[in-house]
């Protein structure tokens, strides 16, 4: 099944304009090289779901004008500070923001993974996060009179896009401890994965690797992309390129600075 293996350009061809696109947080394997391929091709009107938060990847997508709606619990460059293009877009009203809280994103994806129409969640009642989410409901706990609980509709992304350390030619993808990547693959209609390395053996034949492997059943396409999460870190493989991240944080404070960074980034290969 080497039909699973594609180039980065072929990989991101699966992300259409207007798609609901789920992406992981910075420490879980962000597909930065694939994001560059996506922006080079041009994409617009994305509904991005940050699982459960996002960083430079989504800030760049916003800055490039590719995002219509963003559902997330936070956008931040971490130790490099605020996400400037996100901040500007919210202030200018150029994106629709659906503010969430981390476990709500996880729960709503788990509902989709389980084929449930909704899942309850504790907390939230009395918060403005809830007030502004017209798509959420407060219901009664059927087992305790007077106990109210928030019901979240399932989130079913069109596409999940992330980066992982290892895959095989069949499309099985090893994700290690980042188990939320398995949830998002189960929950999404299509799953696109860039990986550091594609090996010949079948990962499911190794009982130790298999236990943390997303089976190809849920994977649409994979593409090799060494250092594909850079400038972000990939746990166990490489640290963050803090110089580039700091340079981005500074440059993106203005629209012009962002545009210059983006032009350079789109033509670079790492």
């Amino acid at each position, binding site marked *: 099944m080497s039909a699973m293996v594609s180039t980065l350009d072929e990989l991101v061809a699966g992300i259409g304009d207007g798609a609901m696109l789920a992406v992981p947080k910075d420490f879980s394997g962000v597909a930065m090289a694939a994001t560059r391929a996506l922006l080079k091709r041009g994409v617009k009107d994305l509904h991005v779901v940050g699982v459960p938060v996002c960083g430079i990847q989504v800030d760049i997508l916003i800055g490039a004008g590719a995002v219509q709606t963003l559902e997330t619990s936070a956008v931040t460059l971490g130790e490099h500070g605020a996400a400037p293009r996100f901040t500007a877009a919210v202030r200018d009203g150029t994106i629709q923001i659906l*503010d969430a*809280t981390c476990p709500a994103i996880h729960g709503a994806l788990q509902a989709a993974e389980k084929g449930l129409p909704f899942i309850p969640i504790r907390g*939230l009642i*009395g918060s403005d996060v*809830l007030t502004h989410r017209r798509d959420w409901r407060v219901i009664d706990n059927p087992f305790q009179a007077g106990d*109210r609980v928030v019901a979240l509709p399932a989130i079913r992304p069109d596409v999940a896009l992330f980066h992982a350390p290892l895959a095989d030619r069949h499309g099985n993808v090893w994700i290690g401890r980042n188990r*939320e990547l398995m949830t998002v693959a189960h929950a999404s209609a299509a799953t696109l994965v860039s990986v550091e390395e594609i090996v010949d053996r079948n990962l499911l034949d190794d009982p130790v690797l298999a236990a943390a492997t997303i089976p190809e059943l849920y994977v649409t396409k994979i593409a090799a992309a060494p250092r594909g999460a850079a400038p972000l870190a990939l746990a166990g493989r490489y640290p963050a390129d803090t110089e580039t991240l700091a340079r981005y944080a500074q440059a993106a404070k203005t629209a012009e600075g962002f545009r210059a960074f983006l032009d350079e980034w789109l033509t670079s290969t790492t």
Partner: protein
Amino acid sequence: MADFHDVSAWRHQTETLVSVIADLLAGCRHVAVGAQSPVPGTAALLARRESAGALRVSVLDTDRHSPFTNGACELFDCAAEGRIDAFFLSGGQIDGQANINLVGAGTYPSVDVRWPGSFGSAFLYFLVPRVILFREEHTRRVFVEKVDFVSAPGTSEPGIYRPGGPHALVTPLGLFHFDRERARFRLASVHPGHTVEEIVAHTGFDFDRDPAPAVTPAPANARRALMHEIVRGEIAEIYPRFAARFLG
């Protein structure tokens, strides 16, 4: 206020904050701290040492110091099961009812100043018994009468499931306890070198206080020594930049 020209004054203040927070963790079995929270992290590791191992400390988003193996949802699941006793939250704005705002100042959604977002606060604030609010800027910009956006409310109506909530507020000027019944902060102690008047001047909400509040005790020498040892060791590994500044 976060800009210290005098690094030794910052170190002195940080020692006080670490010491105050460590005291607030007494009796806990499990505290979780964020990967970018060096002061709470140092306090938690100090409390662990002093507990002779009875306190478990989980540092999120680190491979070596996080116990979690079930993905990014596990912190929240773990808290909801009652397996986490203490956690730290902060806010771009915090008001007198302990409501916190991590979203922005101004009218939502097109706020004047946008912050990253609510993260897990709208959940953890309800479920972790001892939430410690920590903010290194003590100004009227932060401590407002009423937050512009409630990321997570300080208190809830009767009937709302809420085993958790705000326990204390720690700033560079003082320590406040939170009274959940009255939905008000009470100034518990003023840090050395500061005054009640200074705190009142820089706090935008009304709070309870004794006529002459206590002065926050300086950490004992043994505790200071332990703190330095922890910062040199465990903290230098997790928060290297903080450790370098602290140790000089």
